[in-house]
């Protein structure tokens, strides 16, 4: 008996470590992000997620943007070196390259079983579908480029906000004089986004032959002539970038500029109701192009904890969490429930964004897109603006880059 007790005791002791509830080490998920506002942080979001998911720890890493190029190259090199994050923010212009690298994990299985799927509009899901029909990107934030208009300056000249390209030109001419110009053109980094509404605004499309179609060529000549012939843009326009177009508008040196909702609060704080936003000008018959500015999350194929990474990215895209996220990012929520009670921006800027959604479009999801946005567009557009090449030469270069 004694012996049996001893054996039982020994067995119990040896089994004790197995039977005792082990405190499981939380899984760490590395998430790469970038916010336009350098003071914004995702700390509040991370704390809320970790409280709800104690088994997952989020390591949020702020990666320098550098116009997008630096972020992308850092992402590619880290993924190739095997030191990439589990998940991170991505843009459409590098989807093709990330697919080519086989760096993305398809999200379809998770998305289809996700409760928040119906809270994101069909338009957004359509835009977030890759050329192979799969979904690799999870909608997180979005903007649609619109036209800022200084209503007070236009009213002085007895003008209304322009809705088509003829009105746009006459308004820009009327607003130009002395140290003021009608249109803050962005010829520098990132300017392709505000160029596309002009070139594809009358029906041309960025498909094979599209860049050299009669509509696209005519519209591109119109765009270049705004600077060269009509001189309705500041002389520095060929290299002006985000800071210059925003500061010129805020300093009343320009009367109109193309940007998006991330600067709406700044504009409202500067001018109050004297500034508004309207959809970009459209061509005859209502044809138009509003550049869709995406911001998504991807789960990378090399992640050792994809389920946990998906938990984080899907949590960020849920109604109230996505609103909280966009409070830091300064962009629009991707959820219908969040948009219904949106208070982070003045209604007129939200309306201009939403009204532009039906014509919101993106460049082709091909490998050349990254090259186009980073170097080919600014180099050739600047050359055309400064008369080194003709506007049609510029379009032929783009056609060749995309379609050979």
């Amino acid at each position: 008996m004694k012996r049996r007790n001893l054996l039982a005791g020994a067995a119990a002791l040896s089994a004790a470590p197995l039977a005792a509830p082990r405190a499981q080490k939380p899984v760490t998920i590395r998430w790469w992000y970038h916010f336009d506002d350098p003071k914004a942080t995702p700390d509040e979001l991370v704390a809320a997620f970790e409280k709800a998911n104690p088994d997952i720890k989020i390591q949020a890493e702020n990666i320098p943007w550098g116009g997008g190029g630096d972020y992308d190259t850092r992402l590619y090199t880290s993924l190739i070196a095997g030191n990439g994050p589990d998940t991170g923010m991505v843009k459409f212009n590098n989807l093709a390259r990330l697919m080519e690298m086989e760096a993305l994990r398809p999200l379809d299985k998770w998305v289809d079983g996700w409760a928040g799927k119906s809270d994101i509009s069909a338009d957004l899901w359509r835009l977030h579908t890759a050329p192979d029909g799969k979904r690799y990107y999870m909608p997180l934030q979005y903007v649609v480029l619109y036209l800022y208009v200084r209503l007070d300056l236009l009213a002085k000249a007895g003008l209304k906000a322009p809705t088509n390209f003829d009105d746009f030109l006459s308004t820009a001419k009327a607003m130009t004089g002395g140290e003021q110009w009608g249109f803050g053109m962005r010829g520098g980094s990132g300017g392709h986004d505000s160029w596309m509404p002009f070139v594809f605004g009358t029906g041309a499309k960025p498909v094979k032959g599209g860049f050299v179609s009669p509509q696209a060529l005519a519209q591109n000549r119109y765009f270049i002539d705004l600077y060269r012939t009509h001189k309705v843009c500041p002389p520095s326009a060929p290299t002006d970038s985000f800071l210059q177009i925003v500061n010129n508008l805020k300093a009343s040196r320009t009367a109109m500029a193309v940007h998006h909702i991330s600067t709406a609060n700044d504009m409202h704080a500067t001018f109050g109701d004297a500034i508004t936003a309207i959809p970009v000008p459209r061509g005859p018959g209502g044809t138009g192009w509003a550049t869709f500015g995406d911001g998504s999350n991807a789960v990378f194929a090399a992640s050792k904890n994809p389920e946990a990474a998906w938990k984080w990215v899907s949590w960020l895209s849920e109604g109230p969490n996505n609103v909280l996220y966009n409070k830091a990012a300064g962009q629009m929520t991707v959820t219908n429930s969040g948009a219904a009670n949106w208070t982070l921006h003045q209604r007129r800027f939200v309306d201009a964004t939403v009204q532009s959604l039906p014509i919101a479009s993106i460049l082709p999801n091909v490998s050349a897109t990254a090259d186009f946005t980073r170097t080919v567009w600014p180099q050739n557009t600047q050359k055309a603006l400064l008369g080194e090449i003709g506007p049609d030469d510029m379009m032929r270069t783009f056609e060749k880059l995309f379609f050979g």
Partner: protein
Amino acid sequence: MRRWATPWLFLAPALLVTALIVLLPVLNALWLSLHDVVLFRPRLRPFTGLANYVLALTDPVFWESLRHSLVWVVSAVSLQFTLGFTGALLLNRAFAWRSIARALIVVPWALPSVIIGLIWTWMLDFNLGVLNVLGVRLGLLSASIPWLAQLDTAMAGVLLAIAWQGFPFFAITLLAGLQAIPDEHYEAAEIDGAGIFQQFWHITVPGLAEVIVTSLLLRMIWVANSLDLILVMTGGGPGTATQTLPLHAFLTAWSGGNYGQGAALAVILTLLLLGVVVLMLWRRRET
């Protein structure tokens, strides 16, 4: 045998480190330049022989960048040398607060290139730049000039920045050389009736010849390789108006992800620089 091996054993750690941090990257660049290495196609790295070199040499952008590089190096080094030499001659003379002036002149040299690039970008800015504001207020300019957005002024704007950054190097180096020339030479020349310009030409210049050649050679190599200032100020634009060869190589590799092509451009630049250096050293030996 042991006596023969001893110096090599002492040199071995230094040789090993040099091989690791110099030779290995050079060999890697050579390997990359002979392969089609594209960042976003990590599994495909086929051997392409000299294709990257042929592509580089047949690309009009290469020749345009090479032409810009020549303008960049010759103008920048000439400006820096002229300003630096003048500075050195002034700092070699006795005047009040000379030690403070000698310390202050080093400031541009000590600042990081990125900071200098940002300072000059804003100084030359069309809308807010201090140079435009001063120029207009003093009546020197009829209107603001977009210095960095025009084809004919962008390179001048960037050259202004690198001249300001690099002249202290010549000033300090040549000042050290000036102080090594014995005063007796000038005193003897003065007694013989030599004027200031004769003293400068027959004593100062020959006395500084070694320092001038070495500093010019070093600075030429640094300027030819430098891309940070241009990258920050113009990114090579407008268009490709300020794109030099190293910047072309950098943009091809870093922005375009084409490391094979970028490496070929870098190898070509290295060979060109080596050629110039060997030529200069050979000429110096001849004279």
